[in-house]
C-alpha cells in the first residue's frame, strides 16, 4: 500500500535519513521503532511532505501505486493518508466539535460526515461529554483521543500515528493501543511510530527498527521480542554480566 524507497532527508546540512526503505501492507499494523533522534518522526514528516519543499532529497514514496513524494500535504490527505502528529497538536482554542469538523475539511459529503461525527463520538464517549469545551483544556489522553478521532474524520486508508503513547499513563497507553487495534480491524492500515517498544511489539504485525536514520532490523514482532540484542537495548531486559566476578561492563551493539 505504502512503499518508501531509499529516501534521504536533509535538515540543511545534516542528513537525517540515510536511505530508508520499507513497505506497509494493506490491512496491517506496522511499527517503526527506535530511540530518540533515530529519524522515525522525520520519516513520517517526509511522507506527509511537512518538511522543506525540496525534501526528500532522494528516493521515492508511493501510495497505492502513485508517487506522492512531490505532492502537497493537502493532496496527500485527499488521497487517503491521515497523520496524528507527535504531541497531539489539536487546535487549542477551537472546541472539541470544531476540531473534529476540521478533520472532515477535505470531505464533500456533508450528510455522511455528520453520521461519521456521531460514530466518532460513540467510539470516544469522553469527547461527547467535552464536545463544547476548548480542546486546549482537555487532558493529555483526551487530546490524544481527539487527535485520533479528528484524523479518522477524513476517512483515511492509511493512518499514521506518531508516538500515541507520549506522556500517557500505562493504563491510558493500553487503552489507546486497544483503540488503534479496533480501528485497524475496521479496515484502516496503520503505520505507528513508537518509543514504547514493548507495547508496540505487542500490537503490531510487523516492525522496523530505525537507528541513526537507517533501518537496521525488520521482522515480525514475535521474532524481534526473542532477539537478544533487542531484548537488551530496546526492552531493557538486562543481560549484563560480570567478568571475573567484579568488573561489570556494558555490551555494545551496532546494528549494521
Amino acid at each position, binding site marked *: 500500500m505504502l512503499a518508501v524507497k531509499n529516501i534521504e532527508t536533509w535538515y540543511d546540512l545534516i542528513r537525517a535519513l540515510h536511505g530508508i526503505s520499507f513497505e506497509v501492507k494493506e490491512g496491517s499494523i506496522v511499527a517503526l521503532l527506535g530511540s530518540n533522534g533515530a529519524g522515525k518522526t522525520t520519516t513520517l514528516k517526509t511522507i506527509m511532505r511537512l518538511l522543506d519543499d525540496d525534501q526528500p532529497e532522494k528516493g521515492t514514496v508511493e501510495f497505492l501505486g502513485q508517487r506522492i513524494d512531490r505532492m502537497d500535504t*493537502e493532496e496527500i*490527505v485527499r488521497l487517503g493518508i491521515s497523520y496524528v502528529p507527535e504531541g497531539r497538536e489539536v*487546535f487549542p*482554542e477551537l472546541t472539541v466539535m*470544531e476540531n473534529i469538523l*476540521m478533520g472532515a475539511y477535505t470531505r464533500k459529503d456533508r450528510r455522511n460526515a455528520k453520521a461519521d461525527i456521531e460514530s466518532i463520538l460513540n467510539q470516544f464517549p469522553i469527547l461527547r461529554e467535552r464536545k463544547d469545551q476548548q480542546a*486546549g483544556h482537555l487532558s493529555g489522553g483526551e487530546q490524544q483521543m481527539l487527535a485520533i478521532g479528528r484524523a479518522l474524520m477524513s476517512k483515511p486508508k492509511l493512518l499514521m500515528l506518531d508516538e500515541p503513547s507520549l506522556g500517557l499513563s500505562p493504563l491510558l497507553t493500553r487503552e489507546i493501543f486497544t483503540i488503534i487495534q479496533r480501528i485497524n480491524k475496521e479496515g484502516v492500515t496503520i503505520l505507528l511510530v513508537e518509543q514504547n517498544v514493548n507495547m508496540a511489539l505487542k500490537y503490531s504485525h510487523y516492525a522496523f527498527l530505525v537507528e541513526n536514520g537507517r533501518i537496521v532490523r525488520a521482522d515480525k514482532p514475535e521474532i524481534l521480542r526473542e532477539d537478544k540484542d533487542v531484548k537488551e537495548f530496546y526492552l531493557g531486559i538486562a543481560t549484563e554480566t560480570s567478568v571475573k566476578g567484579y568488573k561489570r561492563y556494558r555490551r555494545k551493539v551496532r546494528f549494521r
Partner: protein
Amino acid sequence: MIEQLIIEGLAVGACYGLFGVAVAIIYKTSDVVNFAQGEMGMIATFVAFHVLTVYNVPFWLAFILTTAFAILLGMLIEFCFLRPAKDPTVLGFIIITLGAEMLLMGLAGWKWGAEQKDFPFLLSVQKMHKIMPGVVLNEWSIGVFVLSILIMIFLFLFFRFSKLGIAMRATQQNVNAAKIMGIKVERVFSITWAMSSLIGAVAAMFFAARSVLDPNFMMEPFMRAFAAAVLGGLASIPGVVVGGLLMGIIENIFGYVWPEWKPIVAFVVIVIVITIKPSGLFSKHYVKKV
C-alpha cells in the same frame, strides 16, 4: 452635552474599531501586523474617488468597484510580498509591510498627486438628525454604526459557524496541524488578506469623508486604530471593537475639555494600558501545554 460627546465618540470609535478589525484579522491568522493596511485603504479610496469624479458613475457602483478592487489588492499584496518570503521573522514581516506601505504611498502620489481633495461621499458630515432630546447625529455617524454592526455580525457568524472561518482560526492556532487536516493554508492567507483589505477599504472611505483625501490621510487613523486594537487585545475581534469604541469616547471627551491635547491623549492611554496589561484589555492567550 455629555451624551452628545459620547455618541460622537462612539461613532468615530466604531470607525477605529472597524479599521482595527481589519488589522486584527490578518494578525489573527498569520501573526503579521500589517503596517500597509492604512495605505491599502488609501489606494482603494483613491480608486473610488477616481471612478466617481472621472467616470461619473453612481456612488453604489463606485462602492462595489472599490470593494472588488480592495479584495484584489489584498490578495495581490499577500501573493507578491508575503508569500515569497522564506522563513521570515516577525521583524522581516514588519519590514515587508512597511515597504509595501511606502510603495503604495508613492504610487498614489504619482497617480493622483499630493494635493488635498474632497472625497464625494454619499453620507455627509453636515446633515444632522435628531435622535434623542438633546442629541443630534450626522448621517456619517449613522452610516458608520449601521455598517460596522453589520460587518461585526457577519464576522461573528463567519468565524463561529462557517467551515472556512473555523479553518482560518485553526490555521492561526497551528499551521502544520491545519496542513495535516488538508486545509490549503496559502489559500486561507489569501482570503484573509482579501477580507481584511475589504474591511479596511470601507473604513478608509469613511475616514476620507470625514477629513480630506491625500496620499497621507490614512497615517493618523491607522495609528489610532492600531493603538485601539492593541488596547483591546489584538487577537480578539470583539476586544478590538471595544478598544476602538473606548478610544473614540476618550478622545472625544478629552478633545472637548482640552482641545490642544486631543491628538496625543489616545496614545497616552495606550502607553498606560500596555504597561499595566501588556496583552490588552480583553485578550486571552493560550499557552501551549507540553
